[in-house]
C-alpha cells in the first residue's frame, strides 16, 4: 500500500491529515491539467480546490480497493469542463470542429528542437484556439496519459466519439501550431 492509498484510508476513517497528503501529492498535476483546459490559473486552482473538497465530503463512498489516481484526475477534468459550462463562454463545448500530435509525435525531430520556452508558448497559444472539450481530450490523452476508455467515461461519450474528438483536436492544434510558427 503506497502513501496515497494509506492517506485515502486515513481520510475514510475521519483523519483529515489524509487529505493533506493527497493534496500535496496530486495538486500540481491537477492544477496544471485544469489550467491546460481552462487557460486560467485562478480558475484552475478553484476547480482543483473544489474537487479536493468534494473528495473529502464523499470519501465514504469511494471504494478504497479501486485505484484513487484515475478516479481523482478524471474528476478534475470533469470539474474543469463543468466550470467551462458554468462560465458558458462558449455555448457548444465542441467548438468549430473541422491538430499537437504531429508536434508531440515529432518532438525528437530536428525541427522540433527549439527553445523550450518558445515551444511552451506555442503550445499555450495553440491550446487557446481549441474548444474546451478538445483541450480536455488533449490533456487526458497526452498529459494524464489516460486510455480512450477512461476518457470516454469522463467525457460521458462513446470511445468512437473520443477518437473523433482526439482526431479533430489534433488536426486543429496542428493547424494552429503551423499558423503560430509561420507568424514568427
Amino acid at each position, binding site marked *: 500500500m503506497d502513501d496515497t492509498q494509506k492517506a485515502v484510508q486515513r481520510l475514510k476513517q475521519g483523519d*483529515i491529515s489524509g*487529505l*493533506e497528503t493527497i*493534496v500535496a501529492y496530486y*495538486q*500540481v498535476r491537477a*492544477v*496544471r*491539467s485544469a*489550467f*491546460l483546459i481552462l487557460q486560467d490559473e485562478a480558475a*484552475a486552482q478553484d*476547480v*482543483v*480546490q*473544489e474537487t*479536493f*473538497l*468534494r473528495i473529502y465530503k*464523499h470519501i465514504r*463512498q*469511494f*471504494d478504497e480497493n479501486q485505484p484513487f489516481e484515475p*478516479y481523482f484526475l*478524471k*474528476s478534475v477534468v*470533469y*470539474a474543469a469542463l*463543468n466550470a467551462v459550462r*458554468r*462560465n*458558458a*463562454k*462558449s*455555448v457548444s463545448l465542441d467548438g468549430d470542429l473541422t491538430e*499537437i500530435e504531429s*508536434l*508531440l509525435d515529432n518532438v*525528437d525531430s530536428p525541427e522540433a*528542437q527549439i527553445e*523550450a520556452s518558445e*515551444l*511552451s*508558448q506555442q503550445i*499555450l497559444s495553440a*491550446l487557446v484556439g481549441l474548444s474546451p472539450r478538445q483541450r480536455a481530450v*488533449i*490533456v487526458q490523452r*497526452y*498529459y494524464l496519459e489516460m486510455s480512450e*476508455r477512461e476518457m*470516454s467515461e469522463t467525457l*460521458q461519450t*462513446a*470511445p*468512437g*466519439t473520443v*477518437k*473523433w474528438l482526439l*482526431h479533430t483536436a489534433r488536426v486543429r492544434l496542428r493547424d494552429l501550431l503551423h499558423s503560430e510558427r509561420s507568424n514568427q
Partner: protein
Amino acid sequence: MSKNPREILDAAARTRVPDDVNLYPRIAAQLERKTFMKTLLAKPALLILSIIFTLALLSGVVYAVGRSLGYIPGVGIVENYQTVSILPKTIAASQDGIIFQVRSLTADSNQTILTYSIYGIPLQIGAATQKCTEAPALQLPNGTRLDASSQPIGGIGGENGLLSFNARIVFPPLAVDVNEVTLLTPCQIPPITLQLIPAPQGMVFPVTEIPATYESSHPLLPTLTPGTPTTTLGEYSTNFPPTLTPVHNGSGLYLEEVIETESAYFLIGNFTDAGDLPGATTSLDEIPYGLSVSDRNGKHVPLWVRPELLQNSSWGNVAYWAIEIPKTFDAPLTIILPQITITDNKTFTFPLDVGANPVIGQTWVINKIIQSGSYSFLVENIRRDERGYTLNFHSLKPIMREDFNCAFQIQEKPDSTLNEQFHESNGMSEWAESLVFDDQVPNGELTFTLDISTGFQAGPWTLTWSPPAK
C-alpha cells in the same frame, strides 16, 4: 534534449502553474469554516455564544441572535430567516435587445443569493454578447465591489436564433445595514440599483434538519462479456426486480439531507456511479426529474423537484436530486428511480490482408457475430471503394438508434473521414461505415477497428426512508 508529449505539456503548464503551488491552506480554511458551521448546527448554545462573540468583536455591540433555517421557494435555504432581506419585485434592464431580469435577491446572515435571467442574446456571439454568461457582481453603497463566491449555475435555452440564460449565483453576505446594492451586469447592460426590504412574514418557511437514515437498493445487473469478438448470442433481461439490499459504498441512490417544514419534507440526495456498474452511465443530469415516490401501500405521493436545493456536483459520477413531498403519507416512503442508461463500449478488430492492388468493389467476407451490451451484430463484409473502405454490418435484434454509437477506422492510417449510412429493414438496423481518404488509400495488411457503444436501461433503484418518530 528530447521530451515526450507529457513533458512538453507539463513544461507549457509550468510557465503558469509553478511547482510550489500550495492549495492546502485554502482547503484547510474552507474545511475549518464548514466544520465550525457544523458544530454550530449541532450545538445551539455554542452557536449563540459564538455569534454574540463574533458580532461583539466586529462591531463592539453585543447582539442576542439565534440561528434558524428557513426555506424560500425558488431561492433555497436561508439562515436566520427572521432577518432575511429580499428584493420586493422583479426588476429588469435592457440594452440592444438583450434583457437582464433580476428574479430575486435574497440576503441572509450567511450569503446573498441572486437569481436572474437574460433574454435575447444573439446566437452570433461577439465579444460583447459573449460576456452575457459571465458572472455579474454587486457594488455596495461605499463603492466596494462584491464578487460572487460561486459560479452562476443555470441553463441555456433559446429559440429563433436568440439565446436565453437562467442562473442562480451566490455572493458573500451583506452587512446588516446595507439595504441597497448596485448590480453590475455582464453584456454591457447598465447597472441596476436593487433596493432590499425585510422579507415579509410568511414568505420564508421555517425549516429544521432531521436525520437522513435510509435503506437503498441495487438492482440486479447483467455481467457483460469481455470486449472481444464473440460468436455467442447473449440475451439480458432489462426488467430487473427491485431488491432491498442496502447499497454499501456502491452505485445507487443516496440520501444526504432531510429538511422539514411545517407541511413538507425536502429530501436531498444523489445517485452515485461508484464504478461498479457494467458500463458507463449517461444522462445523470436528468435524474432529479425521473424520480417517483410511493407510500407504504404503494400509493403515489406527489413530489416537486426543487432545483434551488440541488448541489452542484463536480463529479461526473454523482448526480444530485432534491425533492419536496407533503407530510401526509403513510411511512415508509419509497423513492424510485425507474432506470438509468448504462452504455457498454467495445472495440473489435478485423485484421485483413487486402493485397497490394485491391480493385474497387472488391469485397472481403467477415461474417462474424460481435456483441456489445445486450445486443449482437453480424459484421458482414468490408468493401473497397474508390476513396477508401466500407464496413457493412447489421443488428440481430431491433435496437433504437439513440442506443447505439460507433466509430470505424484503420489502425495503420487513422486520418480518414468517416461517413455513415443507416437504415432499418425487417425490424433490424443496418449500418454501412465508410472511410474516405484524402490521399493514398492504404493497401496490404490492415487492421480495421470498429468501436461500438450500446446503451441499456438498468433499474429500478429504490431508497426507503421514514421520518423519525416524534
